[in-house]
């Protein structure tokens, strides 16, 4: 690994192309993207545009047919270490308590000690579940399960979080609470994040930068010109609405480009 702390971005996706079937269409079709250390980038697009596939390529769960993905300078050859992944569904293990679910990434590597348990309890407290450590997933609400999943992704102190529409199934209020929790946790630990969503407001609220994806390509990308830290009230300000409108227009333009290409 280079000693120079990744001048080209902490996560570097370089000319990546991927297709599920050898003769089939490219699901990810030549994407270049970099995420600096500590930044939150959002990937916005409709269902089926290839954004989840791109996220799995960034995670090392899929290997690109062309191009490469580097994390902290090292080219990925398999699932990336020191990366937390939050799936669309909470994917908790229902036979384990919330605490043991959070400890799962550590317990697969070694027997968790008292310090690990303390760290897991702290994380559960940070997502507002201090009193629920002993409960099993079936006794938790959807929002609480998502919180446990976020805590689990953060347990090893990862440098990067990859999130695949983790809050899509939650009600609007719970989703906003979890967005705030995520921003707070990432800021607290300086964790970089690549957040996949189909929700424009979510992308604007969370992202330092938003990329719009359509038909396997990034059709638009730009910084979100809103201050940090972002208070919950920001969602109702004119600047926020304007940023959302601009992204919506960019998405529509991306669609037009795609239709013309097709």
């Amino acid at each position, binding site marked *: 690994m280079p000693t120079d702390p990744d001048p080209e971005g902490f996560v570097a996706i370089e000319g990546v192309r991927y297709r599920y079937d050898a003769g089939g269409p490219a699901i990810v079709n030549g994407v270049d993207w970099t995420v600096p250390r500590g930044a939150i980038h959002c990937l916005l697009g409709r269902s089926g545009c290839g954004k989840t596939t791109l996220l799995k390529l960034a995670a090392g769960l899929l290997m690109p047919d062309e191009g490469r993905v580097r994390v902290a300078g090292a080219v990925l050859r398999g699932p990336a270490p020191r990366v937390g992944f939050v799936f669309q569904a909470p994917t908790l293990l229902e036979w384990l308590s919330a605490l043991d679910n959070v400890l*799962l990434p550590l317990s697969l590597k070694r027997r968790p000690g008292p310090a690990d348990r303390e760290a897991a309890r702290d994380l559960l407290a940070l997502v507002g579940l201090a009193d629920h450590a002993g409960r099993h997933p079936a006794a938790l609400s959807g929002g609480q399960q998502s919180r446990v999943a976020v805590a689990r992704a953060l347990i090893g102190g990862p440098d990067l979080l990859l999130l695949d529409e983790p809050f899509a199934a939650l009600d609007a209020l719970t989703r906003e609470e979890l967005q705030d929790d995520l921003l707070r946790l990432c800021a607290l630990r300086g964790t970089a994040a690549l957040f996949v969503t189909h929700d424009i407001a979510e992308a604007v609220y969370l992202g330092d930068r938003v990329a719009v994806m359509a038909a396997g390509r990034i059709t638009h990308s730009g910084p979100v010109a809103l201050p940090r830290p972002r208070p919950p009230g920001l969602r109702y300000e004119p600047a926020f609405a304007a940023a959302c409108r601009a992204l919506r227009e960019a998405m529509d333009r991306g669609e037009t480009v795609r239709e013309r290409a097709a």
Partner: protein
Amino acid sequence: MSARLASGLLLLALLAAWETWCRAAAVPALILPPPSAVAATLWGEVASGRLWPHLAVTAAEMTLGLALGAAVGLGAGILLAESPALGRVLRPYILASQLVPKLALGPLLIIWFGFGLTPTVVVTALICFFPLMETTLTGLAEVDPARRELFRMLGASRLQTLLRLKLPAALPVILAGLRVAVVLALVGAVVGEFVAGRAGLGASIIAAQSVMDSSLIVALFVVITALGMVFYEAVRALERLALRRYRKG
């Protein structure tokens, strides 16, 4: 509670109807003994102590056959699920082993193992093996792909994925297979004794048949049914204990 009461009342009504019909129509006891005669025979068997050794033999055959069949079925299910290539090679043979009528194996098993406990245990195990293998195979194959991806992401080894994800996730399905197996185990033990047993409830039925003691045969049916219910409820209790964390609350 009221359902149980209704259930009990229905049993009493059926027994009363049976008794009345036997008496009114003067049905010969050889054809169909009345419940009162069956109860008297059963009590005689219990009080004299003749029943207990046979009950113990059948229960032992059931337990051993179930344990052996379940262990081999679980192992085979895991092996076939983890190695699909091996599964494709072995599947026709496993299916064939299940399609051979187990009773037809009886004479061969007697030649191999002699009369007594062993051939019956083998027949019982052969019968119990299949539901466990099938449910293990299905349960392991149906583990949520997102969770498998989670384990890949966490760098889990194949053994860790099996022990910490797939088997616990498949446990409810595997235990449902065990419930089916326990019912089949009783059939296996009793029918195995018909062919190869010297003692046990099945062997006792054959003995009762040879002296045309219909009321003893029916009394043995009652004991066999009760034994099956005890085993089934024991497996249900085990299942509830193992799955208590899977449920709400």
